[in-house]
């Protein structure tokens, strides 16, 4: 016989629930557990042991949520023993680039990876404790911390105990301004000097490259590693090395020169190292354009301030930084430029526009004109639209108005019809003038015509194709 529970008594969500059936029998149901997050940290270390002083280790930290509710927030921190962080997430522009690092919501069954590269110091072991602390805390905190430890192999001097007869030293010279973009080629000069007191013989030269690939070696060696037979006392041997830089982040080229004649190796190794930037970062592009949006509605008089408003738009793809604005006019004084970005360096985000006001003062009666231009640090793929002209007209002062009345009176004598035709012709002339400016790709800047080209848009909606699957219908 089937039974339905007549009453259900719930004590707590984590305690069993007693079901009481209509016939008085009771049964226990397993406790219902509320969804909860469960943060778990795991770390993979590359490369594997053995390690030497100065080696760079990459820690791949995975912060996962093994629970069934999202983790709203988690802070990842790293305690370092005999380790120095080189970089964090070098190839992920949107990720955190330092530790501690705050992670936002991690959904159930999702992971967040953090790549940390750190260099081993001078001690003979290293240790790091990586902890991810969720907020609010999760029920199981034992898996929130991972410790990584390792031993560092001591590198005994190759020629320990051998009396010194030569003292080799290695030096690297490189152009500090040379490009350091991913995929670029770098060249540097390795100079091996023997301070004596004897000649150094059978000098073994080797190179350890990190995030760079060796391309060419010229000079005392044609490849690396190599052996230089002899360097005379107070003499030098030079090698020119060319290499290709790897991915964005740290790179290093370590050159070592050792000889049985030189047991003291403290100055026998040197490095050429630095940061590789992404290609796109240095080749940022911002397509700026300028458009005149407002001009004085009426003619100005000499000495009046004529204000023009321009819209400067950055069509991207990157932000335009350190935007410079210049304006010039042969027949009007440029009084000032008011721009939206008052904080230097001015930046216009990709896809954004800023309004710029230009105040000018015409010097004399008649037309005046000029041009406003913009530029930014980034490469502009279309510099042709980086400037726009402006123009206006300065009318005679009020004392000269009688001349206009005289002209009007003469026109009146000629006849209303003739005057109407003149006005009509003038309008056509203006429109033709506007069209000719459009034909040349220029901007529209005739102030008396408002609006210059009226744009009217209206939208009508037509029905499109409509489909419906089979619909189960029943009367309500």
């Amino acid at each position, binding site marked *: 016989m089937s039974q339905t529970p007549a009453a259900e008594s719930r004590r707590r969500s984590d305690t069993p629930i007693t079901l009481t059936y209509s016939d008085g029998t009771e049964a226990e149901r397993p406790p219902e557990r509320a969804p909860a997050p469960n943060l778990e940290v795991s770390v993979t270390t590359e490369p594997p042991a053995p390690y030497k002083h100065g080696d760079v280790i990459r820690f791949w930290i995975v912060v996962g949520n093994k629970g069934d509710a999202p983790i709203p927030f988690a802070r990842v921190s790293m305690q370092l023993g005999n380790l120095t962080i080189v970089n964090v997430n070098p190839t992920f522009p949107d990720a955190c680039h330092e530790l501690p690092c705050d992670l936002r919501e991690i959904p159930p069954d999702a992971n967040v990876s953090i790549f940390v590269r750190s260099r081993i110091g001078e001690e003979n072991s290293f240790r790091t404790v990586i902890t991810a602390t969720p907020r609010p805390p999760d029920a199981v905190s034992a898996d929130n911390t991972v410790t990584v430890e390792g031993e560092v192999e001591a590198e005994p001097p190759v020629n320990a105990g051998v009396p010194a007869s030569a003292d080799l030293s290695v030096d690297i010279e490189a152009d500090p301004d040379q490009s350091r973009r991913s995929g670029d080629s770098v060249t540097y000069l390795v100079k091996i000097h023997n301070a004596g007191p004897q000649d150094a013989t059978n000098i073994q030269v080797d190179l350890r490259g990190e995030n760079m690939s060796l391309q060419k070696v010229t000079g005392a060696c044609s490849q690396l590693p190599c052996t230089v037979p002899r360097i005379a006392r107070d003499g030098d041997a030079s090698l020119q090395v060319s290499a290709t830089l790897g991915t964005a982040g740290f790179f290093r080229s370590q050159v070592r020169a050792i000889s049985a004649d030189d047991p003291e190796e403290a100055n026998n190794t040197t490095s050429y190292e630095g940061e590789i930037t992404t290609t796109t970062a240095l080749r940022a592009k911002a397509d700026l354009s300028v458009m005149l949006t407002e001009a004085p509605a009426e003619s100005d008089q000499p000495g009046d301030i004529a204000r023009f408003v321009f819209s400067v738009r950055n*069509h991207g793809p990157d932000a335009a930084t350190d935007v410079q604005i210049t304006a010039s006019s042969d027949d009007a004084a440029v009084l000032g430029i008011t721009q939206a970005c008052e904080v230097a360096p001015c930046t216009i985000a990709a896809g954004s526009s800023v309004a710029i006001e230009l105040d000018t003062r015409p010097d004399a009666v008649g037309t005046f004109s000029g041009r406003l231009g913009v530029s930014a640090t980034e490469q502009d793929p279309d510099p042709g639209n980086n400037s726009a002209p402006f123009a206006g007209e300065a009318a005679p002062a009020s004392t000269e108005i009688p001349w206009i009345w005289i002209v009007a009176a003469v026109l009146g004598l000629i006849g209303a019809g003739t005057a109407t035709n003149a006005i009509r012709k003038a309008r056509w002339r203006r429109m033709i003038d506007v*069209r000719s400016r459009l034909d040349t790709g*220029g*901007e529209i800047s005739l102030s008396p015509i408002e609006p210059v080209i009226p744009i009217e*848009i209206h939208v009508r*909606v*037509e029905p499109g194709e409509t*489909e419906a699957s089979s619909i189960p219908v029943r009367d*309500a």
Partner: protein
Amino acid sequence: MPNLTLRRLLPDNYQHLDEAIEKYSREQPWTGQASVPGFLWQMLSDRVTAEIHSVLDGDVFGFLAAGWCKAREIRQSATKSLREPDKPLPLVLGKHELSTGIRPVAVVTLGELGKTELPFDLVVKAKFEAVMITLKNGQLISAGSGDCEVSALLKFREHTLYDGASIKTRMLEPVTFDPGLVIAVESTDKPRANP
């Protein structure tokens, strides 16, 4: 709280719409001999986007209702409702999918330079878990109490401007149609005797 609007399914702007309009204008010149400066297409694109969004700022379920009017099962019920004039016929619709097409056409006049029509295609797709509608006199007069997943695809000619992911929504307030959307009409034709 009002229901989701069709406008909310769409982004604020569309990348490359200006280029698409410029390309269209090159293929079908409408601005006479004038060489239109590049910024004008961007300005036109912004204005057209705003105008189209303004006509789509209505209840998404109102737009989807056109799909119900085409469904065979609902047409049958609408015909049934004609037999009892002025009596509302509430129906519960089970799980089903709808796709409603809308064609906003932007009519653009650029001063004396020319005039053109820019045709857009908007497809709204919805997967309903359940929804209640009411028919009367062969017309759909209201819809209410429904859950669905809805998405929008907007194209300008062959250019896909936006293909949005589905979002879950609920009919928070009933949608009424006054006048109702005609689904079935009473036939006035009388049977004729063969000559």
